[in-house]
C-alpha cells in the first residue's frame, strides 16, 4: 500500500485516492494561439521518468480534493505531497 498525506485529511491509504496523472503538463495558456505542436506535446507527450515523478491524485473517498504528489516510480516511495498549486519538484530539489 502506498500512503499519501492529503493536505486536508492527513496520511491515508492510496486506495482512497484516484490516480489522475502527470502533473507537469500545462495546458497551453492561450488555446486560440497555441499551434499544433504545442497541443501535441500537451495531449500526448510524457516525460515518463524512471525515478521522481510529479503527479496528481484525487482523494475521492475523502475530501475529494486534488493532491499533488512527488513519488519515485521505481520504489513507489512518496517523497512529498502538497496542494495542486505547489511546485514539489522545485522544493524537493532545493531541500536536497
Amino acid at each position, binding site marked *: *500500500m*502506498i500512503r499519501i498525506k492529503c493536505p486536508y485529511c492527513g496520511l491515508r*491509504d*492510496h*486506495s482512497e485516492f484516484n*490516480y489522475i*496523472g*502527470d502533473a507537469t503538463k500545462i495546458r497551453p495558456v492561450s488555446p486560440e494561439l497555441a499551434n*499544433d*505542436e504545442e497541443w*501535441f506535446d500537451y*495531449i*500526448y*507527450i*510524457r*516525460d*515518463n*521518468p*524512471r525515478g521522481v*515523478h510529479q*503527479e496528481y*491524485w484525487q482523494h475521492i473517498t475523502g475530501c475529494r480534493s486534488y493532491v499533488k504528489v512527488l*513519488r519515485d*516510480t*521505481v*520504489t*513507489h516511495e512518496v517523497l512529498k505531497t502538497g496542494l495542486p498549486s505547489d511546485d514539489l519538484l522545485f522544493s524537493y530539489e532545493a531541500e536536497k
Partner: protein
Amino acid sequence: MSKYSVLGLIKNAFNDNKNWERAWRDPEPKKHYDVIIIGAGGHGLASAFYLAKNHGIKNIAVLEKGYLGGGNTGRNTTIVRSNYMLDENALFYEKSLKLWEQLSHELNFNVMFSQRGVLNLANSDSQMDAITRRGNTMRLNGIDAELLDRRQVKKMIPYLDFSKTARFQIKGGLLQRRGGTARHDAVAWGFARGADQLGVDIIQNCEVTGFKTKGNNIEIVETSRGPIGCGKVGFAVAGSTGHLASKLGMKLPIESHVLQAFVSEPLKPIIDHVVTFGAGHFYISQSDKGGLVFGGDIDMYNSYAQKGNLPLIEDVVTAGLAMIPGLSRLRIVRHWGGIMDMSMDGSPIIGKSPIDNLYLNCGWCYGGFKATPGSGWVFAHTIANDAPHELNAGLNFDRFRVGRSVDENGGGPVPNRH
C-alpha cells in the same frame, strides 16, 4: 546446429540426455553490427529472426540487460487472439495469429500454441450490442468470430455464475475459436534458437547505458560490455522504452505502468478456454500444469517497479469471483508484476522514430504477447526497408502528431484507461 526431431529425442534418451547441444551461443559482442536490437524478449528476438530470415541481413545483435525472455515475455498471461475492430489493429493482429498457427513448424521448436478459443463475455444488453458489432466487423475483415447467446455460453462453460441472483447476468459472449494460449518461455527460446542459427548474436547481461550520436544518427551504442558501433538500432524494450528514450533526450506518447498477474495452485482441468469478464476487467485460462493463470487491470499509477500493490489484487479477485464463484477457496501460489508501455491510444507504435536510424517497437499496453511474431515480422520489414510494412503503416509514431489515433475502446489520450 542440429534439428529437433523424434529421432534425436530417442537418440538422446539412450545417452541419458547428456549430449544435447546448447540451443544458442553466448558470443562476445563484436565492434560493429549492421542492426542492433535492444531487448531480447519475444519481440526483439522475433525481429532479429525475421531480419535474418526474410531480409537476408546477417550482421545482427540482440542486446539484453538481463537474461533473454526475463521481462514481459516471462510475465504475461500468454493469451493469443485477434479480436480487434479497427483495421490498423485487426489486420496486424490477424497476421500475427496466422504466424502463430505456423510458428512451431517454422522454428522447429514447440511453442505449445493451443487454439482453445477466447470467449469475451457480455454482461449487459449494451455489451451484447458492442460485441455483436465487433464480431461483425471482425468477420468483414476475414477474422473468425461467433456470437453466442446465454444458453450457448452456459452449455460451453457451465461453471460461470448463471444463478438468478448473480450480480452480473451473463447475456452472451463473443467467441474466437482460433484464439488461445501459448507457452511464453518457449516463444522466446524458439525465436532465440532460430535467430542464433541464422547467425544473430544474442548478447545477454549487456545493459545499454547510453548512445553516441552524430547529426541525427546513432553511431555507437554504449553498453556495460563496451561500446558497439551500429548501422541501425531498434528498441524492443516494452516498459523500459521511456527510460531508454530519455538517454537520447526523446519523449514519447507513452507511460510505464505495472500490471500484475497471478497463478493459482494446480487443479484438474476445469477451464478449457480463455474467458474474459464483461462487467469488470478479468481474464483467465488454465496452464498445462493445472494452475489457473489470470489477471485484470494495471495498478493505474506510473511505475517502473516490477511489483504491484494489494488493493489491485483484491480488485482482480473480486471480479474473478463475480464471474466464477467456484474459485472462492482457491489459493494463489504466485503473483508478479510486469511493466507495461501504455500508449496514449491503447495501440502499439511500430515504426520510424524522430532519429534517422532508430526504429521504435513499443506501446504494447496489455497485449504485447500475442503480437510477438507479427511484431517481429513488420518491425524487421520496417528496419530493413527504412519504411513500414502496410500492416504497421497506421501504427506509426506520427499518428499522434496529426491526431489520427487508433483508439480501439475510445478511452481518449489517458494511458491507464486503455
